[in-house]
């Protein structure tokens, strides 16, 4: 796409072809539930840490799908693993294991 040499906001364009899919596939292997998320936001609405921080599993999953790993980690690093999201999830996603798996795959070498 050609730029016009100016813009009002920085571009939020993502090229999915540039992104490394390996980690995302590994995450699906470890916790297939990640594919069940329909981004309803119940987890974020009930989040204990969410009162004080921007912790949000919903956003983290969306960013990971877009390949924006760095941004995604901002949304899970303060998680207290309390399990409220697990109780409210309408898709019965195993959220605690998903959160641990995200940390495992995207932060450990």
């Amino acid at each position, binding site marked *: 796409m050609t730029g016009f040499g100016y813009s009002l906001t920085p571009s939020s364009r993502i090229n999915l072809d540039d992104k490394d899919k390996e980690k995302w596939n590994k995450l699906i292997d470890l916790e297939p539930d990640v594919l069940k998320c329909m981004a309803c936001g119940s987890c974020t609405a*009930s989040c*204990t*840490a969410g*009162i*004080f*921080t921007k912790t949000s599993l919903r956003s983290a999953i969306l960013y990971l799908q877009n390949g924006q790993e760095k941004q995604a980690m901002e949304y899970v*690093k*303060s*998680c*207290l*693993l*309390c*399990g*409220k999201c*697990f*109780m*409210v999830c309408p898709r*019965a996603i*195993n959220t*605690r*294991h998903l959160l*641990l798996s995200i*940390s*495992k795959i995207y*932060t*450990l070498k």
Partner: protein
Amino acid sequence: MEERIAGGYDPFVLPFMIGIVFILTYLLIALIRIICIMPKSDRKRLGLSLLKPKIIYKNIKDIFGDCLLHLKIFKCNPLLGYMHASIAFGWFMLIVIGHIEVALFTPQRNGIIYYPLFYRYFVAEQTPTPKGSLFFFLMDFFLLIVLSGIGLAMLKRIRSSALGMKRTTKPCVADRIALYCLWAIFPLRLLAEGFTAEISGGGFLTKSTNTLLANFFGNDINVLPMWWAYSIVLGLFFLALPFSRYMHIPTEPLYILLRNAGIKPSHPRKGIAEAEIYSCSSCGICLDACPMNTQKKNIKYSSVYFIRFLRKNNTQKTNEIADKCLMCGKCVAACPVSVDSCALKQSQRSTITNKLPYNYSFLNDVTIHSETHISDINAQSGSDNNNVLYFAGCMTHLTPAIIKSMTSIFETVKEKYVFADKDGGICCGRPLILAGRTDAAKEVIEKNRELVRNSGCKTIVLSCPICMKVFKEEYNLQGVTILHHTQYINNLILQGRLKLNKSEESFVYHDPCELGRGCNIYNEPRNVISAIGELKKADKEKDKSICCGGSLGSLTLDYADRTQITRESLQALTIENPDKIVTACPLCLKTFGDQSDTPVIDIAQAVADNIK
């Protein structure tokens, strides 16, 4: 009695000697290894504990009760208990009486390790004496007891349900070798002593065996082969012992010492954990206890197999099982050796999750709801602060009915209370500990402790058993009474501050894992329910209560399996058709509430509905 064989030696003792020397060397090295690998603080703790009379008494009591008499298995099933106790205690008595015989009749052979075992071959009684007859009787009596136990053990292999076990473990190769040797030891001993009885004399059992067999097989030609066979089987048993489940026999006393010293595992293969996993007798009592095992496919996730893989250092399998476990503690409560497999699984999880990064810098900004409110109350009540701090917990915020009921109870009894997490507090740290993230949990616990200390309250009331367990075990809040709301309400009733109507309704009480097995609170909720209605019984109660299926303990158990457990648990609760199911945990309330046909309420709701 007099020595019959000059020199007190025959080559048939060699197989036994090889076995016993091997096992003693192995045990010595293993003991030194465990002590060396233990953290320094634990070693100091163990040393100090061995000097305290109270702990020494407990050690002796536990070693007798658990290792020899197996009192805990009697509680599970009397016949199963008898089977284990007869073999362990009978064998122990045979060894002890054998040594007494040597000391009394052939003191010159004291200290020869094989002598008491093959005593009947080496020593004979020419003319009967009362003392000799007594020993013949005692030895035969205990041999008979052991043989009856072996008979039951064989029956158990064929039909485990006859001894009250629905399932039993699959033995591995070393287990099988040791098992068949163990079965063979005592019948062979009977035969050997039986054939020798004509020369050496014998009691009611050996003498009659002799009379019976001599007519069929003759005597002299069978004496030595039987003693050889007896010795070989003993030797083989000792050679297979370290690689089999029977390693629990020598390890259990060590584990009891470590456990009573108050040492907790920090790593799944170091120090006390090492003693713990070798103390597992692979008996399989945990198979029937595990709530997951209502489905056959989940049997492989039982504690016994977890420990077996841990022994084999199979990291992949141990991680898989550790992540699956609900941490409900049923297997720990049922375990005859008290192996705390949940703690082991927690430390196994730690090996991976504790390294994960986290950022809890936000904790600095957390305060208790309206601090001014506290200072107001503190000012009113002056220096003696009798306020109650109410900490609802994360889960309770998902079930506002509990909070509403608790506030109404507080207001009825005119309690001055501070609602710590009204605007949302932080987690108690228990879920982090369950996931193995102990370092992260420490930060959260530290922050919460500071909040409790700053509030100045001397009593803290909790609505969630998950919080309750960690507050009691990790928070170290000296001078602060920690109460679950069941206890608090029970106290109010006992003090006469809360008057309740007794309704016609019938209730059944579900013991939440963390409150019952976790904090040992069984009677208070039952007292409270008896005050408001009729208390009905459940199929599995108290420490046998089945997890609701919603447990935070499991990391990987999927929704379908959880639903199955919930159904199972509800079925056990409703056998007497109660009007309502009462629980004391917001997590159980929510899990049951979604699936139960019978209405499910929290104990606080039941009480609030019946206030006079």
